[in-house]
């Protein structure tokens, strides 16, 4: 009897403690994540301009209709998808290749790991500033063009040509980010039991067959996770174009987040910018769900 009393008293204690422990975090998440999210959708059906805070009128889906016909929005959407579709495979394959290079213990392995990881030790702003200088179209001041010229190639106007600007940002982003995903892959590789490799070596499998039949199947969960985080990260592209090209040339590097910023904060079209943000949100969530479906299917 006494024991059950004690037990139920403890359960009660636990329940009280549970609420004390969870309420601060949940309250903050609601206040600064859920409420703003609801307001993004709410404002998106209003005409709301920063300059006229007293003239907020309900306009239904007019913002979305406008968005549908807005060539700049479509451009931003296309640019965001282009960046994502290229950078995700490039960066993930590069990261996996780097991880394979340094997965075994050998003399100097940690030096190479640190080298590949080193771009992560600065910030995206720093990297963007640095590469703007490196990408300079004048071969006398731009390191990369000076290398191209010394190999007898023509210099490229990396950031000032609408055709190359986004590709230049993609290359830099993959270089900066691959070290991070490499670390995740390394952990995944180390989790693969070595017996599997030994057994297949006995069966006469070569390195290439081992890679496809052992490494890849074992890494499936890791690969899925890496693709997911790289994709979500890529969809949010803003800092690089903001620092390097201001969305130009000819809007070639204007992304969805950049467009939200331009419409909402530079032009003051809050309502309209919220409709862009709502679409952005739906796309990110939809892509995560689709990716999950695809990768769970096989």
């Amino acid at each position, binding site marked *: 009897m006494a024991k059950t009393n004690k037990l139920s008293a403890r359960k009660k204690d636990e329940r009280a403690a549970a609420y004390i422990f969870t309420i601060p975090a949940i309250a*903050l998440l609601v206040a600064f994540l859920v409420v703003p999210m609801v307001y993004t959708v709410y404002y998106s059906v209003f005409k709301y301009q920063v300059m006229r805070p007293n003239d907020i009128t309900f306009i239904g889906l007019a913002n979305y209709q406008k968005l549908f016909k807005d060539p700049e929005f479509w451009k931003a959407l296309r640019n965001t998808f282009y960046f994502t579709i290229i950078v995700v495979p490039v960066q993930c394959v590069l990261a996996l290749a780097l991880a394979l290079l340094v997965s075994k213990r050998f003399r100097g392995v940690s030096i190479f790991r640190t080298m590949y990881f080193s771009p992560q*030790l600065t910030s995206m702003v720093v990297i963007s500033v*640095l590469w703007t200088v490196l990408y300079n179209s004048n071969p006398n001041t731009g390191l990369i063009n000076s290398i191209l010229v010394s190999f007898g190639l023509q210099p490229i106007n990396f950031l000032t040509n609408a055709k190359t600007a986004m590709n230049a940002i993609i290359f830099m982003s993959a270089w900066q980010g691959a070290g991070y995903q490499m670390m995740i892959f390394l952990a995944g590789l180390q989790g693969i039991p070595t017996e599997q490799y030994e057994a297949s070596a006995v069966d006469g499998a070569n390195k290439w067959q081992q890679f496809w039949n052992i490494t890849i199947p074992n890494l499936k969960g890791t690969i899925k996770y890496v693709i997911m985080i790289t994709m979500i990260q890529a969809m949010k592209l803003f800092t690089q174009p903001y620092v390097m090209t201001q969305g130009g040339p000819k809007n070639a590097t204007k992304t969805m987040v950049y467009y939200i910023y331009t419409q909402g904060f530079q032009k003051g079209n809050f309502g309209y910018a919220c409709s862009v943000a709502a679409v952005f949100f739906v796309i990110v969530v939809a892509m995560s769900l689709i990716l999950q479906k695809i990768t769970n299917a096989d």
Partner: protein
Amino acid sequence: MKSKKGAAMLGKFLFYFGNTLIGIVFVSPLIWMISASFKPEAKIFANMNSLTTFLPTEPSLNNYIEVFRRINMANVFKNTLLYIALILIFDLIINSICGYALAKFEFRGRKLMLSFIVALMVLPMEAILLPLYIEMSQLGWVNTLQALVIPFIAKCFSIYMFYNFFHDIPDDLLEAAAIDGSSPVRTFFTIVMPISKTVYATVFILDFVAHWNDFMWPFLVMTGEDKRTIQLAVQSFFSTSPVHYSAIMAALVISAIPMIIMFIFMQKYYVEGIASSGIKG
């Protein structure tokens, strides 16, 4: 037999050669940055077509002096470290107790809360910037520390990391404490917390790095020049005349130093943190 050994040697050589070549691609921009930061402006583009461009010829600290003369670095570092420190203190407490409750307490709504937190993880911050900004301005927080700190204390990802870690703590340990008369809250602070230093260190370093990189949000809410964080200072230095590339490189190096120090001291937790996110997720 001999040729086999030769082939192995060659393989080893190619392996190191390849690794070194790729390694150079990864570090050379950073080396160029560091070397340029020590050169006079006239020299950094002087010998671009030779390898000496990577060496600090005529090294001097003039660029660093220029940076400190033009940017109030002490203020910038104070702004940045203060807001990150405040976020991290509350982050580690509030998210860890939440993760613990979800992992170890039985209460109504536990499952719902957990799926709520997991679902919120995909919510991109960028989609809520506008209303969050309005919220800040209604609260009168624009250009104040509150705007940088309070919205970013609770983090779904941190809660999830703590949840995962605490989940693996054996229930027997907690039972034993309870039998000794320790309340659930006391058990957490006196028994669980001290044995969970690794997860605290991991969340600490991951969130430190994330906030050290903060750019867009501070850029929107901290418009006063004296309120600038490090990334804002670097970005505006880059776009303010006179544009001295050598001084810009020095500013970039200065801004990277705290991260490098953090990395040196917390490398183990940082790398483990990145890695474990992949295994659990």
